[in-house]
C-alpha cells in the first residue's frame, strides 16, 4: 500500500468513524448481548441465571404470545395495504393542478408529524361511543353506534382507521415519485392512443413501482413495531384485543422486569420482520421496475 492509499484509508475510516462506532455500540454489541440475555433469566436485581432455551419453551405455553402475534399480524396485513391505498390516492389527488394545493398538503401531512400522545388523546374522543364524532357521522347514514375501543372485535379496526389518518409520510414519498414521472412517457402513450386510465396503469404505476415497494417495506416494518398509540389509547385492551408484540415485550421488560424473556420476544419479532422483508425482496423483481434494467 502506498502512502497515498494509506492516507485515503485512514481518512475514510476517520470520517465514517461516528457511524462505525455507532453500529458497533448500538447494533452489533447489543445484538450479541441480547443473545446472552435470551439464554438467561434475569430481573436486573439477582444475578442472571442460565436457563438455555427455557424462554422459548415458556413462549409456547404463554397464550399471550400467540395472541399478540395474531393481533400484530392482523394490524399489519389489514392496515398496511389500506394505508398505502389511502396514501397513494391522496398523492394522486395532490398531483393534479388544483387550487389550494399547499393547504391540502399541509392538512394531509400534519397528522403524521405531530406527537403521538397529542393525537391519540383526541382520537380516544373521536372514537368515544357516546359523544364521538365518528359515531355521529355513522348515525347520519343510519349506522352504529359502535363501541369502538371497548369491544374486542372493533378495537383493531378502530386503530387501523386512525392509522389511515397518519399516512402523510407515505403520501409525501408517493407524491415526490409521481412528480418524477417523465412527462415524455405520458405524452408518448397518449399519442399511441392510451386513455388516462391505461396511461396510469401502464406508465405511471411501473415507473413508481420502486416507490410502492419502498413504502411497503417501511410500512410493514413499522407496523409490526407499533407501540405508542396502543400504549396510550387502549393499553392492550379490551380483553387483550390490541395487545401487540412490542407492547407485550415492553410489559415484560419494564413492568415485570423479565429481561431475558423480553429479549427473546424481541428476537422472535425481529426474525418475523426479517422473514417478511426477505419474502418481499424475493418477489420484488417480478413487479418492481428499475429504469435502465430491461
Amino acid at each position, binding site marked *: 500500500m502506498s502512502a497515498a492509499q494509506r492516507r485515503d484509508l485512514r481518512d475514510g475510516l476517520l470520517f465514517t468513524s461516528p457511524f462505525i462506532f455507532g453500529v458497533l455500540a448500538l447494533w452489533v454489541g447489543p445484538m450479541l448481548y441480547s443473545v446472552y440475555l435470551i439464554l438467561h433469566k434475569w430481573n436486573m436485581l439477582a444475578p442472571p441465571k442460565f436457563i438455555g432455551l427455557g424462554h422459548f419453551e415458556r413462549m409456547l405455553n404463554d397464550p399471550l404470545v400467540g395472541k399478540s402475534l395474531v393481533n400484530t399480524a392482523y394490524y399489519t396485513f389489514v392496515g398496511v395495504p389500506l394505508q398505502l391505498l389511502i396514501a397513494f390516492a391522496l398523492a394522486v389527488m395532490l398531483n393534479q393542478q388544483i387550487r389550494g394545493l399547499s393547504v391540502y398538503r399541509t392538512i394531509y401531512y400534519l397528522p403524521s408529524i405531530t406527537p403521538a400522545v397529542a393525537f391519540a388523546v383526541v382520537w380516544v374522543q373521536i372514537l368515544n361511543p357516546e359523544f364521538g364524532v365518528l359515531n355521529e357521522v355513522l348515525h347520519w347514514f343510519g349506522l352504529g353506534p359502535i363501541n369502538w375501543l371497548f369491544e374486542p372485535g372493533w378495537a383493531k379496526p378502530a386503530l387501523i382507521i386512525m392509522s389511515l*389518518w397518519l399516512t402523510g409520510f407515505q403520501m409525501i414519498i408517493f407524491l415526490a415519485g409521481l412528480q418524477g414521472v417523465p412527462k415524455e412517457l405520458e405524452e408518448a402513450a397518449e399519442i399511441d392512443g392510451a386513455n388516462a386510465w391505461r396511461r396510469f396503469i401502464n406508465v405511471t404505476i411501473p415507473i413508481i413501482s420502486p416507490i410502492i415497494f419502498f413504502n411497503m417495506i417501511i410500512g410493514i416494518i413499522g407496523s409490526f413495531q407499533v407501540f405508542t398509540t396502543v400504549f396510550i389509547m387502549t393499553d392492550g385492551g379490551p380483553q387483550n384485543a390490541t395487545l401487540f408484540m412490542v407492547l407485550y415485550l415492553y410489559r415484560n421488560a419494564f413492568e415485570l422486569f423479565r429481561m431475558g424473556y423480553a429479549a427473546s420476544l424481541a428476537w422472535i419479532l425481529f426474525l418475523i420482520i426479517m422473514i417478511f422483508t426477505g419474502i418481499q425482496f424475493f418477489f420484488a423483481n417480478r413487479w418492481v421496475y428499475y429504469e435502465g434494467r430491461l
Partner: protein
Amino acid sequence: MIALGLTFLMPLAWVVSTSLKLPGQVFITPIEWIPTAPKWDNYFEVFRRLPFHLFIRNSFFVSIMGTIGMVLSSLTVAYGLSRLRWPGRDFVFTVLLATMMLPAVVTMIPVFIIFKEINWVGTFYPLWVPAWFGAAFYIFLMRQYMLTLPLELDEAAKIDGASNFRILWQVIAPLCGPAVATITIFAFLQHYNAFMEPLIYISKSEMYTLPLGLLWFKGRFGNFWHLVMAASMITILPVIVIFFFAQRQFVQGAQFTGLAGR
C-alpha cells in the same frame, strides 16, 4: 376533495375548539366548532396545574442537541462515503443500507441495560447522544445530495493544499444547505415526537419531555377535556409552526433520497 380535506382536518379542529371552551360546553351536540366566547385562560390554567414550561424546555433541549448531532454526523459520514475513495467504503455503505431496514426493537432491551450500566438511565443522554453517531437514513440522504456536487471542487481545494477536514467544512458543507435543512427538520421532529425513549429512560417528572408531560396531564386531569386539549395544543403548536416555515423541506426530503425524480 374538500370533504376529504375537512375529514382530515377534523381532529385538529376539535382540539383547537375544545381547548377554548368551558367545561360544560365540551360535549354539547351538535358540536359547536367555533366557541362563542373563546376561553384563552385554559392555556394559562395548564401551566398552573403542571410545570409545562419545564416540559417545553426539556423537549427543546433534547431535540436541539439531537438535531445538532444528526446534522454533524450526517455531514461527516456522508463525506467519507461519497467524496473519498478508500477500500472498505462499499462495505460500510452496505452496512448502512442494511441498518436502515433492521427493526430497532431487537436492540431496545440490551441498549437499555448498557445505558443502565453506565448510569445514563434517568439522564437526558440516551435521548440525544445516539444521534451524534448518525442515523442511516439521514446519512444516506446526505450522501445522495453530496454525490450531485462536482468533484472538481475537492480537486481544486486539494491542489491548494487543503486537508479533507477543511474541504468538508469549508467547501462541501456550505453547499449542502438544502440537505442540511431537510435533516434539521426531520431530526428535530423525530426527537420532539419521541415517546418510547423518554418513557423508558426518564422517570423524574421535572425531566419529562412534552409527550410524557402530556400523558401525565391526561392521567391526572383526564376529565377536564378543555384543559387536556389546551395541553395537547401546546404540544402540537411548535410542529405546526415548523411545518409552516419549512413546507418545502418535507417534499425535498423525499426527492433527495433518489427514490423520486431520477
